[in-house]
């Protein structure tokens, strides 16, 4: 069920939160062993929340009363293990709620648990997790995308009606695209980052992963708005997103960035986007080609800026105040065995996975003296050029339409040993974070093999209402978002061997 359908069934007294929650717990029990979308969950805690909510009853102050949500494992939930899918945060239970969690709880939401992810959100496949990989519900031999792969896979597999993700370079939109669900990366500063364990502070944003655009609007409405605990959260009023939904898109000017349909885009993806444009034209929008000339620099710029910020942010994981601490070495008998420095280096060696180590090392390199100007300082200037590309495009059009990713989901293991190829799967989502603009991914077709294809809509800063309006109009005219993966999910590799 969608969030709207759950709300409707409560309103008509056809169901109560206890039934919705118990149905989901049963569903999770069936599907989770195959998908592995959760980093943590405790049915008892879910039931306690339901009991309290039923006692409190529905009210206008609780717009999400009885709505079950899954939280990505890097968003702090008081008292629940929040580990960024990293061994270095094993056992960490935050003493506070992230602002978004606080707002969702206050609105009456039920927290189902924590979703699996790439460690510290470093990855595009959900394979870099200390809990093991999550699988794509449409085909278990494929990745769900990442880093918010657990969130997207759980929503696609109907184990959660909606989830939170975080997006630094595509981590909400690319898994939404691979799993056939909706994902929003809001404008930088639209939603508070307080309590989101930082990866790259100038790029990170929290956003919803849902089945419909309407549901994404509903959750954004509750989460968005100024927060005194995050000084980078914009001090701007939040529009009524649900009101934007019903408005027609007749006369809207859509732009197709020519650089995004260049070589390297899978023909199935290109076909799906072209068909989506036909739908938009039928709905009365105009489509024109535009140019974002600095697109080719986005991935290199991102991997300098993001790793630089990450190497600095991850310095806090040192084994002192929380998380994993290496035991003092006793076997070697070395004098340094019990020093502070050895405690740092060994705790970090044991706690971080390979991709985290790789990115910290790269970030340390681009910030180190002698290389700073050639890499980091240059990347910051190119970031300005990328941002200007978007400002210019939005002088000509209202909204950009692109593929979310150049390909549908890829196979598990396919890109694990080649980090650069993995990084390139984010080629269409990364510029958006560098420019700080909002973008929405929504399903727009399937490949003949049955894997979902996603389309990305991009708008001006703080124009989420426009993205919802365009996305909702598209979902009103199509039914891709209503398709469900089969319950008896096969893996193409298993299917192959059984023939």
């Amino acid at each position, binding site marked *: 069920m969608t969030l709207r359908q759950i709300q409707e069934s409560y309103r008509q007294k056809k169901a109560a939160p206890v039934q919705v929650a118990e149905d989901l717990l049963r569903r999770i029990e069936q599907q989770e062993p195959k998908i592995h979308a959760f980093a943590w969950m405790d049915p008892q805690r879910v039931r306690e929340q339901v009991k309290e909510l039923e006692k409190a009853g529905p009210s206008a102050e609780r717009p999400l009363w009885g709505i079950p949500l899954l939280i990505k494992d890097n968003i702090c939930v008081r008292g629940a293990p929040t580990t960024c899918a990293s061994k270095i945060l094993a056992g960490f239970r935050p003493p506070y709620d992230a602002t978004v969690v606080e707002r969702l709880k206050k609105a009456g939401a039920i927290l189902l648990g924590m979703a699996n992810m790439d460690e510290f959100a470093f990855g595009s496949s959900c394979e870099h997790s200390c809990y093991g990989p999550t699988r794509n519900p449409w085909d278990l031999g494929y990745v769900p995308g990442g880093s918010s792969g657990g969130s997207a896979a759980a929503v696609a597999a109907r184990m959660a009606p909606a989830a939170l993700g975080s997006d630094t370079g595509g981590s909400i939109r690319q898994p939404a695209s691979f799993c056939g669900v909706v994902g929003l990366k809001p404008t930088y500063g639209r939603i508070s980052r307080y309590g989101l364990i930082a990866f790259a502070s100038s790029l990170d944003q929290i956003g919803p992963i849902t089945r419909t655009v309407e549901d994404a609007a509903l959750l954004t409405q509750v989460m968005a708005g100024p927060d005194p605990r995050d000084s980078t959260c914009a001090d701007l009023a939040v529009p009524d997103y649900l009101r934007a939904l019903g408005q027609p898109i007749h006369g809207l000017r859509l732009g197709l960035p020519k650089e995004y349909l260049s070589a390297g885009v899978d023909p199935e993806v290109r076909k799906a986007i072209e068909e989506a444009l036909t739908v938009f034209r039928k709905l009365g929008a105009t489509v024109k080609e535009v140019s974002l000339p600095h697109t080719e620099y986005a991935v290199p710029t991102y*991997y300098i800026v993001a790793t630089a910020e990450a190497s600095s942010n991850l310095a806090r994981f040192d*084994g002192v*105040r929380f*998380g994993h601490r290496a035991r003092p070495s006793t076997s070697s008998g070395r004098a340094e065995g019990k020093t502070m420095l*050895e405690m740092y280096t060994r705790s970090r060696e044991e706690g971080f996975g*390979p991709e985290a180590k790789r990115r910290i*090392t790269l970030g340390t390199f681009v910030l180190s003296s002698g290389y700073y100007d050639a890499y980091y300082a240059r990347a*910051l200037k190119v970031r300005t050029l990328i941002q200007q590309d978007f400002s210019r495009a939005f002088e000509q059009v209202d909204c950009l339409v692109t593929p979310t990713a150049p390909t549908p989901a890829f196979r598990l293991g396919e890109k694990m040993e080649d980090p650069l190829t993995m990084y390139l799967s984010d080629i269409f989502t990364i510029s958006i974070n560098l420019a*700080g603009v909002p973008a929405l991914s929504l399903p727009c077709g399937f490949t003949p093999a049955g894997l979902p294809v996603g389309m990305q809509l991009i708008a001006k800063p703080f124009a989420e209402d426009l993205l919802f309006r365009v996305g909702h109009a598209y979902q009103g005219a199509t039914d891709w978002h209503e398709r469900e993966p089969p319950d008896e999910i096969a893996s193409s590799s298993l299917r192959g061997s059984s023939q």
Partner: protein
Amino acid sequence: MAISPKDVEALSRLARIQLTDEELARFAGQLDGILSYVEKLKSAKTEGVAPTSHVLPLSNVFREDKLQPSLPTEEALANAPAREGPFFKVPKIIDPTG
């Protein structure tokens, strides 16, 4: 540029991560590949372009200097790998023999 395992070792020391010889060799090759790819940035025309470190036009966000409740000591220490009284416990920092 070519990154050697020795370069990676120097970086790992700066980043306070101990890496195995196998990791040093593997990362050297992988970082080399990534860095040759980012060389691409050299062809961008950046003369006279101002750097963007942050997308919002923000500077100095202030709040009232008011007394507010903070995290109680017990909760702040609840996740500590080791503690002693109201403190985080760590190995000796100053070596009296050094």
